[in-house]
């Protein structure tokens, strides 16, 4: 019953999405009020309730291990721990697509409740969102239904990919989807604004909080993914320029550009066309990401559901969104207005320059990601585009963006006063040579990029600190204080990431050696002794656990696991975190030594200051949260002011 009910609820959500499109469209055409508008708003609720219940039923099916559902049979096992039974609901293609659709509905609901102030624009955005829902729910219902049956049912499931059985990865996909799908709301509002011929300034204000929420979640999702890769994949890397990582990085870069561009558009009416274009493009690149992961066009550690037929569906959705969005933009961009002029030393100019650098970075990442695919599809040679390309193209652009990043908050809008503003940055400017000198001293012999990255990290951190010190006391309202804190935190987070990346780039090469119990190994100043290797089987895996005693005190216990149901091995690394960095140990295969004893391959690595990456990501997310809170608080204050003015007018009359 659960499977069929879930299937029916997906069908109902698709039908309700159609009702949402029709009624919200009609309601918007009638000024955003009346029965049709209300029906449109209620249809979104029906979509969310239907999809949400279907998703809950899928989780119940996983908890019951109902292997008559093909998706459950393919991604679960009776002995799997409870957390991963739940997480498996979004651990594969069909379930994650249901989650994606549920998010689309939730963002539609958010638009209908806290979307643009103009009721007609809000309803129009709800109807555009309904078009996206129709595309994705159709794909779900007809080509990726998580409730498809497998009859006769197998007695046991195939288990979830063991490397996905990890707490960080249980949370990573939902956050990533909030990011990807959240950008659909910016797309919907931008497209609705073009249809309604809304002035750019109002449109910038309307789409900014949605873009900010989506970008913040995307940051958290990407950071969790990088953290997971660092400790779960067993080789200590956190970013590989993997095509699927790039697929999330491109919307992140454009999202970062969008939230800054939207500020300039909202405050000064600057770049309205560019802001709308970015809003359209960011979601299209999100859908491109879905295509890359789910179509089978590439091979990646992240790729799943390698199904060309589904790829055609997603390509169709991608083409529909791109053609529809850009055609609308071409026809209506003129209605957005041109905004006011500004000096080259104004804040708008610096935001614009940074926007161009971020967009150019996204562009070179896009080229590097899709070029091998296009070449392959056109019958050309199989090529692989890896870190050398991205380091040579995207990194310089991002370095330039880091140079400009701390300056903009000190510059005035429009024109004049640049010198006075920059004077506040003098202390931070002094940090630059100090940072470069310090970097050279600290990282003697380190790669040039690491020294530059470290110096720029300190430069950005200095700028963020100056910004907080200067602007926080001057902010008079709570909303303004949170806005300044959000900006400073997010910028400082970027600084920490640059610092962490630079430090990690200068890490010593890892050391791998076979050790017999009792033998020691020294790496990066740490001496470890292999005490023993013993069995440490878990609920659904067999494991060898090594006990490594550190000379400085403490033990590390890396594991080598075998998951019988999936017939797959994984490595669980052990990490000792200190301020200086992470000491990282992994255990590999047993090796027969020449003297007949059994040794175990032990891999040691030291990642200097890797914590800075995590701290940076956390600060960006916290900054995003503060900015969202500031936005909400400002909205409440504005509503109260309007209510007060209305009451006063009423009393006077």
């Amino acid at each position: 019953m659960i499977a069929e009910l879930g299937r029916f609820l997906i069908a109902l959500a698709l039908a309700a999405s159609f009702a949402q499109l029709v009624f919200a469209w009609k309601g918007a055409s009638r000024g955003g009020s009346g029965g049709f508008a209300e029906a449109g708003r209620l249809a979104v609720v029906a979509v969310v309730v239907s999809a949400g219940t279907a998703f809950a039923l899928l989780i119940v099916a996983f908890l019951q291990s109902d292997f008559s559902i093909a998706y459950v049979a393919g991604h679960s096992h009776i002995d799997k721990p409870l957390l991963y039974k739940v997480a498996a609901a979004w651990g594969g293609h069909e379930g994650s697509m249901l989650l994606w659709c549920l998010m689309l509905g939730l963002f539609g609901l958010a638009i209908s409740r806290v979307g643009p102030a103009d009721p007609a624009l809000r309803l129009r955005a709800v109807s555009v969102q309904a078009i996206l829902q129709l595309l994705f729910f159709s794909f779900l219902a007809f080509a990726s239904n998580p409730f498809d049956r497998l009859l006769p049912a197998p007695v046991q499931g195939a288990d979830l990919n063991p490397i996905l059985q990890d707490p960080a990865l249980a949370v990573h996909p939902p956050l990533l989807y909030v990011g990807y799908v959240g950008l659909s709301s910016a797309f919907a509002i931008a497209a609705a604004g073009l249809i309604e011929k809304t002035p750019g300034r109002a449109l910038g204000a309307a789409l900014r909080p949605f873009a900010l929420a989506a970008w913040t979640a995307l940051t958290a999702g990407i950071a969790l993914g990088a953290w997971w890769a660092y400790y779960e994949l067993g080789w200590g890397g956190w970013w590989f320029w993997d095509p699927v990582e790039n697929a999330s990085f491109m919307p992140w870069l454009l999202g970062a550009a969008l939230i800054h561009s939207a500020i300039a558009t909202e405050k000064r009416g600057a770049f309205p066309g560019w802001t709308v274009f970015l809003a359209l493009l960011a979601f299209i690149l999100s859908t491109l990401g879905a295509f890359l992961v789910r179509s089978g066009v590439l091979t990646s550690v992240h790729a799943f559901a390698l199904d060309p037929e589904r790829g055609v569906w997603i390509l169709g959705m991608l083409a529909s969104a791109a053609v529809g969005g850009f055609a609308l933009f071409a026809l209506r961009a003129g209605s957005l207005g041109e905004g006011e002029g500004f000096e080259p030393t104004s804040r708008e100019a610096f935001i614009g320059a940074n926007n161009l650098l971020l967009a150019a970075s996204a562009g070179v990442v896009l080229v590097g990601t899709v070029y091998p695919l296009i070449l392959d599809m056109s019958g050309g040679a199989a090529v692989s585009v890896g870190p050398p390309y991205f380091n040579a193209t995207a990194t310089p652009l991002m370095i330039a963006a880091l140079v400009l990043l701390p300056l903009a908050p000190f510059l005035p809008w429009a024109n004049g006063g640049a010198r006075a503003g920059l004077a506040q940055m003098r202390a931070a400017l002094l940090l630059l040579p100090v940072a470069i000198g310090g970097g050279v001293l600290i990282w003697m012999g380190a790669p040039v990029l690491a020294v530059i990255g470290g110096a720029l990290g300190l430069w950005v951190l200095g700028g963020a600190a100056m910004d907080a010190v200067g602007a926080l006391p001057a902010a008079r309202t709570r909303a303004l204080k949170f806005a300044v804190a959000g900006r400073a935190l997010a910028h400082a987070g970027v600084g920490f990431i640059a610092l962490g990346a630079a430090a990690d780039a200068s890490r010593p090469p890892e050391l791998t050696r076979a050790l017999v119990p009792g033998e020691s190994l020294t790496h990066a100043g740490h001496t470890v002794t292999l005490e023993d290797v013993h069995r440490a089987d878990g609920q659904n895996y067999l494991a060898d656990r090594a006990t490594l005693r550190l000379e400085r005190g403490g033990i590390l216990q890396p594991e080598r696991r075998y998951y019988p149901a999936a017939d797959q091995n994984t490595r669980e690394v052990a990490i000792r975190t200190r301020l200086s960095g992470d000491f990282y140990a992994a255990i590999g295969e047993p090796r027969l030594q020449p003297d007949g004893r059994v040794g175990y391959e032990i891999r040691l690595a030291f990642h200097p200051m890797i914590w800075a990456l995590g701290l940076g990501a956390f600060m960006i997310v916290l900054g995003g949260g503060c900015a969202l809170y500031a936005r909400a608080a400002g909205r409440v204050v504005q509503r109260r002011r309007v209510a007060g003015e209305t009451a006063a007018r009423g009393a006077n009359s």
Partner: protein
Amino acid sequence: MIVFASLAALIAVIAGLFIARPLAREKHGAPIALVTTGAIALAAFMIYFPGAEPGEPGQPHSATVARLIEADPSTLTLEEQEERLRALVRREPDNTQALAMLGRLLAATERELEAVSVLERALRIEESARTLSDLGQTLVTLNEGEVTPAASRAFERAYELDPALPEPAFFLGLRAYQDGDREAAARYWGAIIAQLEPGDPFRGAIAARAADLLSRPSAGPALGAGGEAAGEAPFADLDPGEAEAMVAAMVDRLQARLDENPDDFSGWMTLVRARATSGQREAALASLAQAQSNFDSEPRRVMLSALARALGLVPVSGAQQDEETR
């Protein structure tokens, strides 16, 4: 089916009414609302039906397990038997019988790592010669026939607990054989043969295996794990004349050694085999007779008989074959 259809229809109508209710405020609102409700419900059913299985109930794992436990195990597939045993173990984690059977089943389906884990778990709860022997055998299989120290420990403990169990003694013999101590191996194997009744299927099998291993030239090709010869053609690179001469020299050296030490049981078996395989049937029969007169214990005679049959030195009667080589 009827329950599901009714429930789905009810949900669809409620959803339709929920959405369409405000439309009643519009001009001609009531019929529009009704049509909308019907259209939403109809559309939901039309989207639902392709690929749907409304008549098929869900199959939670608990229901599958209940069915398997009720079923006669002999009617189940291997996969179902495994799941049945796993379910019993989940219900009663200390059920050593189920654990031991599961371990044996996993070993039989070439999932040795899992089998070792399950058998070790059973042994942590209760020590048993049978389970120890199964564990040892699984470790031997996992190590491609080599009786490792861990396997040896398991067999030794099993042998202590139940000396009458044939497998531990056989594998302890194999361990001795792999260590180069053929006399100890012959003692272990002889002891089992002595214990087993003439009609026991293990008796013939062990005798044949012992005869095969003990008759191999000790200085010949390196023995692989399990006593299998890694290569059976030590003289392959030589021309036939040279090879024949080398075999003859080896046989002569062996005969001389046995003249000095006639108690070398393995040596006699090797000599019989060498002569039989080099076409000296009469000489092989003479050596066999000599060996039989040297070793009058029943188990050693059984091993020699098994060798003679394997080499075609004596005709094998149907009854004998049934009795000793089953």
